[in-house]
């Protein structure tokens, strides 16, 4: 790896200094020997902040990819038996923005059966080309068949960047295909930008979710990322769709599979907090399960739903479907009130696109106040009961 230790400069002082400096406890110093272990995340803190010259970073010679050969920004059209997931349109909107920087076309890749309606809808959002892999054996999602079609698309079209919605299907399919092309994949990006040299700048919360990382994939193509629903905005439809439809002939060998689907059931309609206009979210500030009554009452008065942060799910107080954040749902309601939530990025990454954020927390230093529109520094147990009375006009 790229970090080189100059053992001549290693002594008890510099050794101990480096061991303490490493935020990932990846540096060890024993019997006069300094070592960097597998925990290393290449943050290069030891190079930049450590004793001069003890650890240095050596750039490796890298085989460069010819970026001009890779053209176009592709959106994977996530279709569930003829119903396109709305994240697809949000990604088309973002793809158009990114493509305009480098003057690339925007493609949609559609895999399924009976695709006509989906094709029409994709074109209506102004994509330049829809590549269609249509076959009755592609009706149900099958990881092997879909990955084969996806791979054929990449080999034939050579798109520069591919955006995939972070649905359960997308999260299963994108890594499989990215690994096949030995390329990078950045999950759950919250911001995407395009460089002039076609490098896709992928920004996401990292290291457990309290800081943001800006990630690039400079020496491989295609560039792969996944984005969750409700991170970007859905674009307007175009008045006169002009995009082209490319139907690809399916080869029998792509349809081989080791999986046999026995049964597909519709899930019973369950609460989806990402569709709510008003959310009251509660976190560790809640002292007892009984106190949920006032949270529920506030949500009801505002015509909203109740959601929570991760510790509440881990404590078994809420079901995971109520959870906002990186390991839960992303929400973008008109109003969200957070009660007793400190606001780790793990949480805020899932809600900071909301139109109006009102945070109630007794700790004036809580991170939630960095992302809110209105911060109420106070005890939810004093504020909320009074607020409920006022709303009820008592």
């Amino acid at each position, binding site marked *: *790896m*790229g970090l080189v230790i100059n053992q001549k400069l290693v002594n008890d002082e510099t050794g101990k200094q480096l061991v303490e400096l490493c935020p990932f406890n990846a540096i060890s110093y024993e019997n006069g020997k300094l070592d960097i272990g597998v925990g290393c995340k290449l943050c290069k*803190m030891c190079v930049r902040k450590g004793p001069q010259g003890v650890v240095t970073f050596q750039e490796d010679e890298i085989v460069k990819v010819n970026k001009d050969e890779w053209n176009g920004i592709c959106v994977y059209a996530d279709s569930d038996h003829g119903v396109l997931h709305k994240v697809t349109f949000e990604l088309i909107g973002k793809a158009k923005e990114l493509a305009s920087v480098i003057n690339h076309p925007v493609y949609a890749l559609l895999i399924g059966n009976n695709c006509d309606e989906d094709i029409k809808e994709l074109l209506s959002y102004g994509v330049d080309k829809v590549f269609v892999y249509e076959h009755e054996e592609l009706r149900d999602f099958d990881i092997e068949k879909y990955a084969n079609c996806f791979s054929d698309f990449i080999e034939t079209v050579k798109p520069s960047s591919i955006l995939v919605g972070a649905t359960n299907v997308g*999260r*299963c399919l994108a890594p*499989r295909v990215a*690994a096949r092309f030995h390329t990078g994949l950045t999950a759950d990006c919250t911001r995407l930008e395009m460089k002039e040299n076609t490098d896709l700048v992928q920004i996401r919360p990292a290291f457990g979710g309290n800081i943001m990382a800006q990630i690039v994939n400079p020496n491989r193509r295609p560039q792969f990322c996944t984005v969750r629903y409700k991170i970007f905005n859905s674009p307007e439809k175009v008045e006169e769709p002009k995009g082209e439809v490319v139907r690809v002939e399916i080869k029998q060998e792509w349809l081989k599979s080791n999986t046999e689907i026995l049964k597909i059931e519709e899930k019973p309609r369950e609460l989806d907090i990402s569709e709510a206009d008003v959310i009251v979210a509660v976190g560790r500030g809640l002292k007892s399960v009984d106190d949920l009554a006032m949270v529920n009452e506030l949500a009801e008065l505002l015509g909203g739903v109740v959601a929570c942060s991760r510790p509440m799910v881990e404590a078994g107080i809420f079901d995971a479907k109520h959870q906002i954040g990186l390991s839960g749902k992303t929400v973008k309601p008109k109003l969200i009130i957070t009660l007793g939530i400190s606001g780790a990025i793990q949480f805020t990454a899932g809600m900071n696109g909301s139109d109006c954020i009102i945070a109630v927390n007794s700790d004036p230093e809580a991170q939630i106040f960095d992302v809110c*529109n209105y911060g109420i520094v106070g005890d939810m147990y004093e504020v909320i009961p009074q607020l409920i009375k006022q709303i009820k006009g008592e």
Partner: protein
Amino acid sequence: MNIIVCIKQVPGTTNVNVDPVTGTLIRDGVAAKMNPYDLYALELGFKLKDKHGGTLNVVSMGPNSALEVIREAIYMGADGGVLISDRKFGGADVLATSYTLCSGILALGDFDVILCGKQTTDGDTAQVGSELAEHLKVPHAANVRDVDVDGDRIKYVSNLDNKIVTAKIKTPCLLCVDGEVNTPRLPSFKRKLQYGDCAEQIRIITFDDLQDKDETHYGLKGSPTQVERIFNPDKKSEKEIIKDGNLASEMYKILRDRKFV
């Protein structure tokens, strides 16, 4: 049945901040633990083993401290564990991590099913399992909620956005297990007394044990993605912080002015 469960040691807390002055990472020194999502995969593995026999081994990639979570898995009921650890594996992104796991697992010999947790709490990418399946060239399924054996196949139930899918998959295969699908067992004190530091149950695999000795496939060199910079998230510049006065009335005014009540 030869079952492998992939586990990872993660920090006990996710509180990491960037020091605004020095730009260094500040990490609370709280003890590490087993990634909570891996516990569900382990429990599902124990269920398969209890019903159909065979062996269950855990595999982890990480520094030597990760031996702790391997021991914990053995105290829970795993037959043995493997730690894939080498300085050459440092700085790995998803592609290099999954490839290293693949090489390590291939060095172990045959398997019937590999179970992975849904995601880790320190990376939160939920990608390593699927990439591992691709490297191993075995079929896989994600968001698996339940498994059973059906002849020479594994029958599973998976949660696919709006659908629940029941399917049969040929072995060898890999399954990524959803969260909260069972109640993971606790480590057994009896097994802890019996196995102690588990020296006989644990094997450590280093770079030299792998068949593919091309260093450009591992660690930083095998990682196509690069972190250009890390930073604290933007703070909202236009905001109102209310500390004094009747907070409930102030909050009511905001809701009324913005027509929420």
